[in-house]
């Protein structure tokens, strides 16, 4: 009976297993093997040992794209986290028409990335941009959002807030799980709203914050579509040239699939390391109810 059940179970899981083996496991293993080869798509891969990894160590564009990406992660993750939590707190209040507000704040996340890139190219347009009149009223020259090498990354970090609706929904779900009894107890102790937020809400949703931060780090390390649309060629002086853009260029523009595979595996290791660091740092600050 058990063996028969197992067979039926495997049969039902077969489509997923096949999909995983063909579309995930095989590319993963082959990209790992390709990272040790000189592979240009049309030529047979030739084993070159660690040459691709050694080349990465001496590649200034690799460092430039990596530092751009890490700066983006450092800027975008905290910013979207704070904004998403604030929005979630705001949308957790009992106000008439709250469902509508929640929908409105979530809607931007449904905009496709390429459309979003095009949209923001107009928002930050130096001449017709939506932001220009505000700066002009203040008699402050608007920054070169898209053209100044010192500004391009910050523009993208600002744009990253556009997608915080997704995290906001998760925070909102977390907030609604916080037991009311804890707030009542805090009130009995004389806690005001800030104290309740600091000592009850934040600790209680800290696992959700950790989840969103880790997902944010992983997502931000893979930022691609919006900078690719906004900054063809990596922006002024490669100031908005991100890791995945360089990886893409190597794979598909320069046909250096082996080198790009090595980059992919280095990114995986960086992602893993940052995730582990985040988990380690969270040990003291994340509160689990089971604790």
């Amino acid at each position, binding site marked *: 009976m058990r063996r*028969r059940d197992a*067979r*039926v179970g495997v*049969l039902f899981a*077969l489509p997923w297993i096949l999909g995983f083996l063909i579309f995930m496991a095989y590319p993963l293993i082959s990209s790992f093997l390709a990272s040790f080869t*000189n592979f*240009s*798509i*049309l*030529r047979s891969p*030739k084993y*070159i040992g660690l040459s691709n990894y050694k*080349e990465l160590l001496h590649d*200034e*564009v690799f460092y430039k794209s990596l530092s751009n990406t890490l700066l983006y992660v450092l800027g975008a993750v905290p910013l979207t986290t704070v904004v998403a939590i604030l929005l979630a707190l705001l949308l957790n209040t009992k106000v008439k028409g709250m469902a509508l507000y929640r929908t409105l704040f979530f809607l931007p996340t449904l905009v496709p990335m390429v459309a979003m890139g095009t949209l923001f190219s107009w928002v*930050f*347009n*130096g*001449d*017709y*941009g939506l932001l220009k009149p505000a700066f002009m009223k203040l008699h402050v*020259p*608007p920054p*070169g*959002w*898209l*053209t*100044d*090498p010192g500004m391009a990354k910050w523009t993208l970090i600002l744009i990253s807030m556009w997608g915080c609706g997704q995290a906001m929904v998760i925070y909102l779900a977390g907030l609604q799980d916080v037991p009311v009894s804890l707030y009542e107890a805090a009130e009995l102790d004389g806690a005001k709203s800030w104290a309740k937020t600091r000592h009850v809400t934040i600790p209680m949703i800290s696992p959700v914050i950790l989840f969103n931060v880790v997902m944010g780090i992983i997502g931000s390390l893979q930022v691609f579509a919006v900078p690719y649309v906004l900054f063809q*060629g*990596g922006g*002024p*002086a*490669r100031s908005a040239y991100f890791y995945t853009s360089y990886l893409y*260029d190597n794979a*598909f*523009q*320069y*046909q250096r699939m082996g080198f790009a595979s090595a980059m992919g595996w280095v990114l995986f290791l960086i992602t893993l390391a940052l995730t582990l660091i985040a988990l380690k740092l969270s040990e003291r600050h994340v509160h689990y109810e089971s604790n």
Partner: protein
Amino acid sequence: MTAREVLGLSAVACVMIAAAVAGDRAVARQARTDRITVVYWEKWTGDEAKEMRKVVDAFNKSQDKIFVQYLSISGVDTKTMLATAGGNPPDVAGIWQEQVAQFADSKALSDLTAMANDAGLSRDYYIKGYYDPLFYHNKLWGLPSTPASIGLHVRPDLVPANVGTPETFPKTLDAFDALVAKISTKDANGDLKMAGFLPSDPGWWNFAWGMYFGGKLMEGDKLTIDSPENIRAYKWIEKYAKMFGPKEIQSFQSGFGNFASPQDPFMLGKVATEINGTWKGSYIRVYRPGMKWFAVPFPYPDDRPDLAGHACLSQDILTIPRGAKHPKEAFEFIRYVQRQDVMEGLCKGHGKNSPLAKVSEDFFETHQNKFIRLFDQLARSPKAFSAPQIGVTSQLRAEIDVAFTEVSTGLKSPDQALHDAQDRVSGLWATYKNQVLDQ
């Protein structure tokens, strides 16, 4: 095994067989059963695609053995490369001239030399500047679809009347620079209102600036990005950045709209002159009909009169990817496009000059671009030049673009920016030679 499991497994097997059969049909891409289908992937959309479709339709009507299936494909170069690697490429792929070396080195293209010679499509049939870049390592890898030459476009209403004609417009760079300084205007806040000329507009041919000063990017096998002529060109670019101010240029240029729209800075009068290709006239006709403009060769340095009439050339080309199912039939179509009447019709439709050595008077007379004779002359100029034939052209252009931005934003001196580009591309070129060319 129970009957239910057997039924389930049979259903899965049926689905997989159906998928395999349907998939095989899908990749076969046979559009017609009565003719051989030649699949043609091309980069163009909009009006340019329509013009090529007319050619395809005419070819399909002209005979009853081959049917060309024309498909507009975004990222045609990457997709062609991947489809070739996957063993199912199109029969004809429309890529760019600059990609010939990279595609040929990757063994992604079929050698057209014999077929072209048999069809009488030899070097003499074409303008040299268009044929030679397609000949790489003693083999012909593609033939032109539509070419272009690059000239300086001028708005006579934005320059003084005494230089407002092609004949009176400055021929040398010193006079041109003086004119730009004179006509450029700023508003009360110090913001640029109108620039006489901006080297960064549209910014598509940064690799070519050195060549306008007599430089080269390669001498034989060696890269010469930081040659004295190239550094001189980039000092000239730096001069423009200083004249207007890097921040002012950035701010001014961030308001420029797309070239294929009414927000184009030249059409809006934000720049009085602009370096651009033969096609510019077509866009003006569509988005700003009636606007007055003329074209001249880009000015030459005062101490290099031998460079008069120089021009950068580029072209779209037709190739047959390696492993194409019907190479002979594909070449039949390419040969048809090379016919003088067909080529002239297509180039006229695209607003471009012809790549052929022989051009009919009717082509010039009826062409929508009234300066088409100039663009034809520029293409035939012995001083005409193209991007170098090298497998790392994409990287080379990317590095020069970075150097250009670094110089025009004041981040690096011309010497430093070009030395850095030289170092980086040399490293990439050495790796390429080692890994791809097995040298």
